[in-house]
């Protein structure tokens, strides 16, 4: 068991397992299910089996959250960048506006401040990734940090002086970024489900639901986590770019 856990990278622990645990705990607190009933008496009596089951469940939920974060943020970034590039496109259908607003609530975050250097870094990484992996048009399918993450992994093929220290720092920043984003999504989901349940209580019982406090707390907590994530993202970009100019890699 220890060997399995030891094989997990910081990114997997912080970016997948930890948010998965938080989501499971939130689910447990919400639904108030008894773990012994779910697992059955034979499994729940064995502590190793319980640990493994919880670990697998947390990993699965964490992976789902991470994929959701990637897809949602990719969509958010696409809309943001489209609007920056072509403001006249803002007048879209009502359905699209509702979707955009929903995505903003769940995934909205500030774009990195260094606009010019940010684009430069994105172009450089995309070109490097495609030339090394011999793939084509990968930018269309990857979220901004998937591109960054892929670059970080591929750049180790090129000999860059003192790269290992920087790459370790980048991996740490990346793990924190994923942790913050997945946790932020978990809080946003708690807020959305809580809001729906509160609305049902208000309509049925004509009184304010105590859940509203939880809704406000998680809703308000979600965005600051994305702000922190944006800072980690900037940090990661700066660290990666410090490895060299694209001409060095070409």
């Amino acid at each position, binding site marked *: 068991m220890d060997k399995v856990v030891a094989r997990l990278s910081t990114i997997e622990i912080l970016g997948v397992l930890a948010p998965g645990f938080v989501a499971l705990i939130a689910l447990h607190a919400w639904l108030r299910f008894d773990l012994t009933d779910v697992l059955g008496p034979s499994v729940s009596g064995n502590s190793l089996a319980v640990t493994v089951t919880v670990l697998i469940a947390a990993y699965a939920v964490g992976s789902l959250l991470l994929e959701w974060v990637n897809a949602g943020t990719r969509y958010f*970034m696409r809309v943001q*960048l489209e609007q920056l*590039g072509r403001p006249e496109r803002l007048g879209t259908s009502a359905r699209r506006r509702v979707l955009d607003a929903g995505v903003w609530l769940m995934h909205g975050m500030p774009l990195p401040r260094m606009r010019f250097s940010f684009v430069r870094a994105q*172009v*450089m990484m995309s*070109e490097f990734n*495609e030339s090394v992996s011999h793939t084509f048009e990968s930018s269309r399918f990857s979220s901004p940090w998937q591109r960054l993450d892929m670059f970080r992994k591929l750049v180790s093929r090129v000999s860059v002086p003192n790269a290992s220290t920087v790459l370790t720092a980048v991996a740490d920043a990346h793990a924190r970024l994923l942790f913050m984003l997945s946790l932020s999504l978990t809080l946003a989901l708690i807020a959305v489900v809580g809001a729906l349940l509160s609305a049902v209580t208000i309509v049925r019982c004509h009184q304010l639901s105590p859940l509203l406090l939880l809704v406000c707390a998680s809703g308000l907590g979600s965005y600051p986590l994305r702000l922190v994530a944006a800072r980690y993202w900037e940090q990661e970009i700066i660290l990666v770019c410090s490895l060299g100019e*694209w001409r060095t890699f070409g």
Partner: protein
Amino acid sequence: MIEQLQIKGEWRDGVPILEIDYLPAQMFQPRTSQLLSEKLISQYRSLLAESGLDVPPPACVLVIKATTAGSPLVRAIFAVYEVIHADSGTLFCVNYPVAYLESLTSLGLTALPGFKLMNTLDETLEEARKLVPPIA
């Protein structure tokens, strides 16, 4: 393969126009991005030199004739943009292959100040002429 890479330059209504064409396979060739960037920039500089203008033009149009795109083209566009933007100019990119537009957007190029994506050369020239001061 290198010979298949065609870059032309001309002046129209006081606006420099760069035109680029290549075969799809060109996007997979090694060193294409560097070559494209260098050729585009040198074509732009030679257009400036032949015009004899004291100040660089406020707008430049880049027309893409090819139907495919890839990271070499993106890098070349960015390299030209850097040169033009350094002179406080605007780069109008015309006819970028629609199927590849999403990658250009996702990299953030379309959000840069002084970079405009356009559909046709006529509307681009109309837009660019607004930036060019009238000849006294």
